[in-house]
Structure formats: structure tokens, C-alpha cells
């Protein structure tokens, strides 16, 4: 498969509820084999976007394509979806409802049973498989929810806040399963408002605020293209002299340790020379902004 055929693409998607426009020309891509984090504050439009991808909501304008083809029910039937608002049938056993959901996605009875058994074992739920869902702990219910999204071996995964409410062990289990799927060539789009989680997990990043995409691309690219250039300097004596250096604005000064931003037209080498001229330099390095900082910058 070449790159074009394995991309989930949103193109100029608009959506309003009444007078309120919640998505404004939303465009981005989710590439095969990549974990794409979808980040935004509450009400930014994450859930609406995902619902439009799954066809649960219709877009007012724009289009969504998978492998270059506009989505229809047939194609969406091969997507895996975990909605933000969780839930399965409380009075059905885990195994039975995962099989049922597999069959609703077009699997044969036998195929759905086999896939369910494998999956439940994979996510550590095989022993509780025949218990009613309502008797399971919340963490295990969450695992069952993942099984429900994965049972039909989807071509595309769209997960709305998949890690919220999970204990660290469950996060690791599910992350492993998702990474496997991504490694097998499945595009994985997952939303989160926990930036530290996304930072750890995603390859690509899409940032949305007020219904518009503010940034999209690989995590490294976004980091390096952040407009501010920040450095950390550690010397032996007080670093207060940095205040008078041209193009430098101090962010943090703690005796011999300083964090500063450089103006766009200033080179960092003269600053290093100035520091060396004053004595030994113990550390001098660029500070890559955290996702939280990037997020704050692109959404302000």
C-alpha cells in the first residue's frame, strides 16, 4: 500500500449545532501505522470530529476519506470506535457482548468467537469473560470496552479518551495492544486532554481549539518548530549578567542556573562565548518545549 491509500483524511469539515459552529473547516490526516494524538480543551470539538469520522454525526460541509475513498457505511463498518461516553450491556457477559459487537461488524459467529477469545486473553480478561459486565471493576469494564472496539480487527481505530479512568497497569496493557495494531499498519487516532499521556504515547499530534485545527504534524516537528527558542545555561557563579545580553529574555534565574528565551534574530553562540569568557560552563542546551507548552502557545 502506498501512502495515499492508507491515510484517513479530513478535508474542510464544518459542523454547527444550532447557531453555534463547533467545527470550522477541520482538516488533518491520520497516517497508517502512526499513533496520532488528538488534543484540545473541553468543548474544543474533539468528540464531534470523531463522531463525524464514524458517521454518528453528519458533517455540514467537507469530507472524510479513507485511502482516498469517501466514507460510507461499508467502509466505516471496518473501523473500530470507542466513544467518549462508555458503556456496554450491564446484564450480558463480556464474552457474549464482544461476540455480538463483532457480528454486528459483519463477522461470522465462529470468527467473532475466536477473535473474542484471543482478544480477552490478550488484555487479561479471559478469566472474567463469562461474568456479567456489571460485576466487573471499572478498570476491567474499560478493558472490555477496548475489546469491543478491537474485536473485528479494524482497519482504522478511533478512540475518544481511551485512557481516562484507567490505572497505570491497564494503560500499559491497552497501550501495548494499540501499538501492535499501529505496527500492523492501522492508523490510530486517539483523543485526550491529559497532555502528559499524549506526549508519552503519540507519534503525530493534532491540536484543536475552538473548532479549528491549530497545529498538526509529527511530535518532533511540532516541537522543533515552536516559535520560541529556549535554552538552559549552568555556570559556576551567578548568571545574572544574562539580563544585559542582547536578544535574551530571562525566564528563570536561580543563582548559577538560568533558563532564557532567545529572540528570533539572535544566535545562541555569542551567548555561550560570553558565558565561557566569565568562567567554566557546566551545561548549555536547548530546552525542547513540553507538549503542554506547545499546546498553550498554539491555542492562545
Amino acid at each position, binding site marked *: 500500500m502506498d501512502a495515499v491509500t492508507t491515510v484517513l483524511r479530513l478535508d474542510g469539515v464544518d459542523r454547527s449545532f444550532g447557531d453555534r459552529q463547533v467545527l470550522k473547516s477541520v482538516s488533518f490526516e491520520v497516517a497508517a501505522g502512526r499513533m496520532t494524538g488528538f488534543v484540545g480543551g473541553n468543548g474544543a470539538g474533539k468528540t464531534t470530529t470523531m463522531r463525524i469520522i464514524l458517521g454518528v*454525526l*453528519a458533517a455540514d460541509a467537507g469530507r472524510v476519506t479513507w485511502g482516498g475513498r469517501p466514507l460510507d*457505511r461499508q467502509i466505516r463498518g471496518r*473501523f473500530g470506535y470507542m*466513544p467518549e461516553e*462508555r458503556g*456496554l*450491556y450491564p446484564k450480558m457477559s463480556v464474552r457474549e457482548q464482544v461476540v455480538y459487537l463483532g457480528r*454486528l461488524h459483519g463477522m461470522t459467529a465462529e470468527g467473532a468467537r475466536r477473535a473474542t477469545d484471543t482478544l480477552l486473553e490478550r488484555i487479561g480478561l479471559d478469566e472474567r469473560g463469562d461474568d456479567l459486565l456489571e460485576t466487573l471493576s471499572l478498570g476491567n469494564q474499560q478493558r472490555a470496552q477496548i475489546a469491543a472496539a478491537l474485536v473485528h480487527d479494524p482497519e482504522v481505530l478511533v478512540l475518544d479518551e481511551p485512557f481516562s479512568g484507567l490505572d497505570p497497569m491497564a494503560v500499559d496493557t491497552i497501550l501495548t495492544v494499540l501499538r501492535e495494531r499501529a505496527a500492523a499498519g492501522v492508523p490510530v487516532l486517539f483523543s485526550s486532554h491529559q497532555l502528559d499521556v499524549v506526549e508519552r504515547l503519540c507519534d503525530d499530534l493534532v491540536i484543536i481549539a475552538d473548532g479549528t485545527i491549530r497545529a498538526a504534524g509529527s511530535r518532533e516537528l511540532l516541537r522543533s518548530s515552536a516559535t520560541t527558542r529556549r535554552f538552559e545555561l549552568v555556570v559556576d557563579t551567578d548568571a545574572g549578567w544574562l539580563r544585559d545580553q542582547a536578544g535574551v529574555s530571562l525566564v528563570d534565574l536561580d543563582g548559577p542556573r538560568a533558563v532564557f528565551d532567545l529572540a528570533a534574530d539572535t544566535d545562541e553562540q555569542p551567548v555561550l562565548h560570553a558565558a565561557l569568557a566569565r568562567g567554566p560552563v557546566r551545561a548549555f542546551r536547548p530546552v525542547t518545549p513540553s507538549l503542554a507548552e506547545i499546546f498553550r502557545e498554539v491555542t492562545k
Partner: protein
Amino acid sequence: MNTFEATRLVAAREIRVKLRDRTFLISTLFFLLIAAAATILPPLLAGGPSTVAVTEAAAGPLREAGLEVRVVADDAAAEQAVRDGDADAAVVAGPAVLAMNDAPTDVVSALSSAPPVRLLNPDAVDPVVAFLVPFAFAFIFFITSQTFGMQIAQSIIEEKQTRIVEILVAAVPVRALLAGKMLAGTLLALGQIGLIAAVALAGMAFGDSNQLLSLLGPAIGWFVPFFLLGFVLIASMWAAAGALVNRLEDISGVSMPVQLAVMLPFFAVIFLNDNAGAMQVLSYLPFSSPTAMPLRLFNGDAAVWELFASLALLLVAAAGFVLAGSRVYEGSLLRTNGRTSIRTAWRERETLG
């Protein structure tokens, strides 16, 4: 996944879950017991022919009349048999009939010569039966459309309340979800009624009510299509009502109109069943025709073309309600914040993908 296949899967799940529901199983069993008791017990309690204590000399005519004859030595022994409860009556010299406190009509008529009777309307229905049968029809329709309609609503609310509905809607057409639930409800309702009918028929055969059976036959035959369409009509209202709320606790708030739509026709048919004019009107109104029309047939008041006309009206009404119900269902299914108004649900549908 096409709509047909999805509908089948959804219906299969609904039925499977229901057949494991203890409340459902117990209530079905309870209905079966009632049906068996109502058909078997009355003939048994009626007790068959009287037992007569009589001397061998006078036994002949009584035997011919099919009475149970208990031969005794003399009149004194015959009287004693009645006093001891060994016989219902005794025939002693005179001839005189002895009984404890209730004149035994069958014994009396066996000994008398009755004038010939010509029945002018031999098929006319016994007034007791004429009341009980309509009541039974109306009751069955009332109870089943209520229980199974309510179950459709509950199943819809459960899917909304647990939020699984969003996964379902992403996987299968919304229409298939609704159709599957309606299909399952209809099959379960028909299955339950079929069981009850089978038990009732077996009970009648057992209790020797074959004559009633032949009278009831056509009415029951017509009751089935009327019941089916009437049930679909009511079920689509329950589906819409269920889709409007998000929690099982809130269902009473929206179910009142549906309850009235079932209850008012029920009482109308019960209370007006001997008022020919009213029944004629009721037998055409879609909400009451499922019970009123088979009744008029049972009482011999309805022509065949009337049955077809009423059935056609009911079909149109049911189709209309299914369309309206599914539109409300589609429009409110994903609105999980509080109660949705019918008007919002109606408009919202256009935005579903």
C-alpha cells in the same frame, strides 16, 4: 452489514436476553396457569351428570338419560344415600325426586316429557361466554401490548443510558436497531400468546368445550392479523417514548400518552361491547379495532368486507406510526442530556449521518 442482517442480529440478541429474564419466564408461566385453570376447571367444577340413588326397578329411564345410577335396595336406602352425600339425588316411589337443597334439573327432565323446542338462532352465543370472550381478547391485547411495548422502550433506554448506543449506531443502520427491537417484541408477544392459546385450546378440548371452540375459531383466526398490526402500532409509540428519555426512572414521564392509547380503547371495548353502534365505530378506529373487530365477528355482527376495511385502516395507521416513531427514535437516540422534546427529535433527524 446490511440492514436485514443487522435487524436479525439485533432481534436475536433481544430475544436471547429476554428468554433468560426470570421475571419474564415467571409471568409467562403464570399466564399459562391462568389459561389452563380458566379452561379446565369450570367443566370439572360443574361436576358432570348427577348421581342418582334408585331401586333397580326404576333405574331404566335414568340410565337412558345418561345419569349416573346408583342402585339401592329400597327407598329408605335411597334417601339415606342422599343424606350421606353418596348420591346427588334419589328417585323414590311416586315417583318423587329427593335432593338435599338444590333441585336436580337433569333428573327432573329425565322423568318428565318436555314439549319440543325449536331454536330460532341456534348459533347465538351464551351471554356469559359473550361477555367473557371479548373480555379475554381485549385483556390479552391490553396486557401483551403493554408488557412487550414497555420492554421495547426499556431496551431502548438501556442502550441510551449505558451509552452503548453510540457504538451500535456506528456499526449498524439506526433503522436496523429499531426494526430488530420491534421484531423481537412482536415475536415474543406472539410466542407468548401462541403458548397461552395452545394451553387454552388443549384445556377446552380436555374440558369438552368443543362447541365453544368451533365458535371461537374464526374470531381467533382474525384476531392474529389485527393483533399483529395493533401491536406494531403501539410498539412504535413505546419506541419513540423510550428514545426521548435517558434513564429508566424517567420513563413514566413520557409513557402516559402511550398508556392511555392502550387503556382507553380497552375500557371502551369492555364497557360498550353490547352497544352495536359504538362497537361499529370502535371496530374501525386503529387503536380499538384490534379487539373490537374480532369481537363483532364473534358475535356475528361483522361482514367480511368490514374486516378487510378495518384491517386496511389499521395497516395504514401502523405504517404511519412506525415511520413517525422511527423518525423520533433516530432524532433523539444520541441526545443523551436530559429529556428530548418530540419536536427537537423530529427536526434533529436530518443531521444524523
